[in-house]
C-alpha cells in the first residue's frame, strides 16, 4: 500500500469539512474522488499533501512521496516553458525535463513565455511538472480543466504510464478519464460540515 488513510477529519479554516475518511491506494492504482462542488475534494487533497494539518486520524505514507497539483498552475509568466520546468526539476533534484516535455507535447513551446500560453497549454505545462517531481503519489485537483479531448487522452496516458511505473494517483475530477485500474470513491458520505470544536473564534465568527 502506498498510501493509507484512516479516520481522517479535515478542516478548511474554521470549518470542519470531512470526517471519518478512510481508504487505501495501492501501488499502480488510481483513486478517483467524486463528489459535488464544495463537498471537500480540494480540502482532502490539501490535507493529504500536508498543506493543512488533519484534525483527526492518520495518513500513512512514505515521507516526501506526494506530488500535489492544485487549481492554480503555479507558473511564472515571465519565464519560458523550459525555465519553468527546469526550476521545478532543480527543486525536486531530478535533472531531465525531456520525458515531461515529450509526455505533454511541449517541444514546440519550449521557448515561449508561460504568460503567452493559452489556458490549456498552461495546464499541460503545469501537469508536466508532476513528471519532473519524480514522486510516486500524485494528488491532483481537477487536472483536466481547460484541456481538450486530445490532451485529456494524453494526460490519461501519462497517468497510466506513471501507474505502470510503480506510482499511484488520487484524482479529483468530474469527467471519465478512461483509466482501466482506477477505483472511484464518493466522498459525499464523509461530509460533516460544522464549526471546529477546537476553534476559539468559531462562536464569534458565526454568531
Amino acid at each position, binding site marked *: 500500500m502506498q498510501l493509507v488513510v484512516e479516520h481522517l477529519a479535515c478542516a478548511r479554516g474554521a470549518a470542519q469539512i470531512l470526517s471519518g475518511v478512510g481508504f487505501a491506494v495501492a501501488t499502480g492504482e488510481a483513486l478517483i474522488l467524486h463528489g459535488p462542488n464544495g463537498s471537500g475534494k480540494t480540502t482532502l487533497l490539501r490535507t493529504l499533501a500536508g498543506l493543512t494539518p488533519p484534525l483527526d486520524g492518520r495518513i500513512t505514507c512514505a515521507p516526501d512521496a506526494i506530488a500535489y497539483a492544485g487549481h492554480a498552475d503555479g507558473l511564472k509568466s*515571465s519565464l519560458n516553458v523550459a525555465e519553468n520546468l527546469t526550476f521545478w526539476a532543480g527543486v525536486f533534484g531530478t535533472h531531465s525535463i525531456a520525458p515531461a516535455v515529450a509526455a505533454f507535447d511541449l517541444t514546440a513551446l519550449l521557448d515561449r513565455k508561460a504568460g503567452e500560453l493559452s489556458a490549456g497549454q498552461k495546464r499541460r505545462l503545469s501537469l508536466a511538472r508532476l513528471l519532473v517531481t519524480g514522486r510516486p503519489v500524485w494528488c491532483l485537483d481537477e487536472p483536466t480543466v481547460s484541456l481538450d479531448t486530445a490532451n485529456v487522452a494524453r494526460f490519461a496516458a501519462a497517468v497510466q504510464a506513471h501507474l505502470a511505473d510503480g506510482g499511484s494517483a488520487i484524482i479529483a475530477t468530474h469527467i471519465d478519464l478512461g483509466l482501466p485500474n482506477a477505483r472511484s470513491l464518493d466522498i459525499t458520505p464523509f461530509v460533516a460540515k460544522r464549526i471546529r470544536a477546537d476553534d476559539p473564534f468559531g462562536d464569534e465568527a458565526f454568531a
Partner: protein
Amino acid sequence: MIGLLSRDLNLAIRAGGGFGLGLAFFLIFTALVPFGVGPETGILRIIAPGILWLGALLACLLSLDRIFQLDWEDGSLDLLATSPLPLEGVAAIKALAHWITTGLPLVALSPILGLLLNLPGPAYPWLVASLAIGTPALSAIGTFGAALTVGIKRGGLLLSLLVLPLYVPTLIFGAMAVSRGAAGLDATTPLAMLGGITLATVATLPFAAAAALRVNLR
C-alpha cells in the same frame, strides 16, 4: 535552494519584476529633500544621515509585499511548501533575494545621494558600512511581515503597520552611526548594535516566517 535564488533574481530583473522600484524611490526621495527643506547646506548637513537612512528604509518597505504575494497568487507557494525544500530555507532565500535586489543597490547608490544632501566627508564610510550591515535586517524583518500577511488581499497596509515598529531600532542605530561619523566621532558602538540586530533577525526570523506561512497556507 540556489535554483530558487536564481529564479527570484531572474524574475526581479525581467519586465514587471519590480527591480529598481526601491532604488528609484530612494533616488527621488533624497533628491526632493533639498527642495522641501531648503538648500541651506547647514540644515542639510545635520539632517542628511537621518534622511538617507529613512529613504533606504522606506524603499525597502515598498517592495516587501511582492516577496510572497506573487507566489501565493499563482499557486507556486503551495508547490514550494510541498517540495523537498524546507519552508525555513525558502523564507531565508526569499529574504536574501529581496536584499540583493533592494538592499544591495541602495548601499551602492548611497554615497552619490550623500553628495546631494551635502553629507560631511568623514561620514561616507560609515554610511556605506551602516547600510551594508543594517539593510539585511530590513529584508529579514520584512520577509517575516510578508509571510504573516500573505493571504490577505491588499495586505500592504497591514504589512507596513506590522513592520514599521520593528524597523525602528535598525533606523535608530543606523542613523546614529552615520551622524556620529559625520561629527567625526567613533561610530563602532552603533555599528556593533546594528550588526547584532542583523545577526539576530537573520538567525531567527526565517523560522518565524516559515511558521507564519504554514498557518497561512491552511
